[in-house]
């Protein structure tokens, strides 16, 4: 798509948007006005239309790999909701039947009593499920924290071991440096003695005179 790397064209040349603009267009990230212009360009430019078709082909293909299905923990409050729904249905039926048949004081009391029983039942079920959920979540949290702490501890141990290795290497380096320094001092002393001897020899040589022949 080399021909489309220009946003500005001169009179008589086709003004192709570049690939970056088309990417924003394809993924809905360009401004509405620009989108409208690009839409219009596509209807008149077969080169860009062909390129877009190729890119859309790639995008459509990607959609053929759906998200993997994974198991999820069932929501713990779901049974409570079911109980509540069941209770509501029973109550609704009871009230409807009561209205149809009789509305005596005794039946109303019985209905109220059933309502209280059902409410208590739903409450108990809900509390039980809630406490189970909390216990499960708490235990999972504790386990996760324990694992994370183990991991952190392991990392620290690894770091300490690395530091120890570095310290040993540094000590060894120091020792070698000391030896090299000592060798250098010896060489310097020897060199100085050598210089001294040479100096003396040169002085003797300078002072030397050839004895006159008698």
């Amino acid at each position, binding site marked *: *798509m080399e021909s489309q790397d220009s946003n500005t064209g001169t009179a008589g040349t086709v003004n192709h948007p570049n*690939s*970056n603009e*088309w*990417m*924003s267009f394809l*993924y809905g*990230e360009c401004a509405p006005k620009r989108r409208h212009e690009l839409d219009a360009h596509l209807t008149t430019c077969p080169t860009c239309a062909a390129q877009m078709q*190729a*890119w859309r*082909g*790639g*995008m*459509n*293909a*990607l959609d*053929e*790999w*759906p*998200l*993997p*299905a*994974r198991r999820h923990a069932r929501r713990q409050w779901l049974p409570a909701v079911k109980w509540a729904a069941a209770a509501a249905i029973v109550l609704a039926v009871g009230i409807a039947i009561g209205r149809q048949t009789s509305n005596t004081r005794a039946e109303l009391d019985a209905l109220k009593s059933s309502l209280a029983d059902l409410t208590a039942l739903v409450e108990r079920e809900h509390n039980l499920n809630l406490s189970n959920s909390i216990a499960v*979540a708490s235990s999972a*949290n504790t386990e*996760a*924290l324990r*694992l*994370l702490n183990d*991991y*952190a501890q392991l*990392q620290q141990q690894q770091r300490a071991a690395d530091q120890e290795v570095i310290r040993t290497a540094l000590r060894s380096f120091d020792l070698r440096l000391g030896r090299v320094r000592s060798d250098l001092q010896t060489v310097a002393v020897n060199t100085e003695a050598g210089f001294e001897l040479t100096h003396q020899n040169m002085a003797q040589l300078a002072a030397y005179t050839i004895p006159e022949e008698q």
Partner: protein
Amino acid sequence: MANVISALFTASDEQLMWRVKLQDDAEAFASLMSRWQRPIENLCIRMTGDTHRAEDLAQSAFARIFARRADWEPTGKFSTFLWRVALNLCHDELRRAKRRGECSLDALDEGGDSQPNYIASEDPAPDEQADRRERAELVRDALLKLSTHYREVVVLRHYEGLKFHEIGEVLAIPEGTVKSRMAEALTQLNRLLKHLDGDTSWNPKTQTPELLAL
């Protein structure tokens, strides 16, 4: 409206991470994990092509973040930090697999436990399920055939829905480079999978020399 109200009372990722950093708040970290575990696992699946390995990688990403909680500074979004850690782990894993001489495609084609299960909406007929599965595997294989710097852009933009500028922040590259990589990745995918579009009777064993050569 309900979303706005719930957003007002929901702690942001950065607030939760601050609580983890300063108080070792397990509850805050659990909230972060519940928000991000699924997207991070999905990222790892798309990057490595292996569901089980992806679960381990996602756990490692969270463990690494917890271990380094003291070093975390809120200079950017928490999610950018998390995506980056997860992607680095994916890169390490891919390098290790390459060193071991593993071919991820071969590993996936063995079937059994490492095979992801694909969502089958409304229980289609067995032959249709098989066809979908086959197409999904071809797309996955084509995606794994892309270079990692193309694949990560495709996964973050197409599957995880990050904006191009957000991907630039995660990968620390200019937005224009992200778009260029996306365009090139889509071109390559279209070339690898051009027979997939609209041809359900296509036989991959005879018509995908590029993929079968893997």
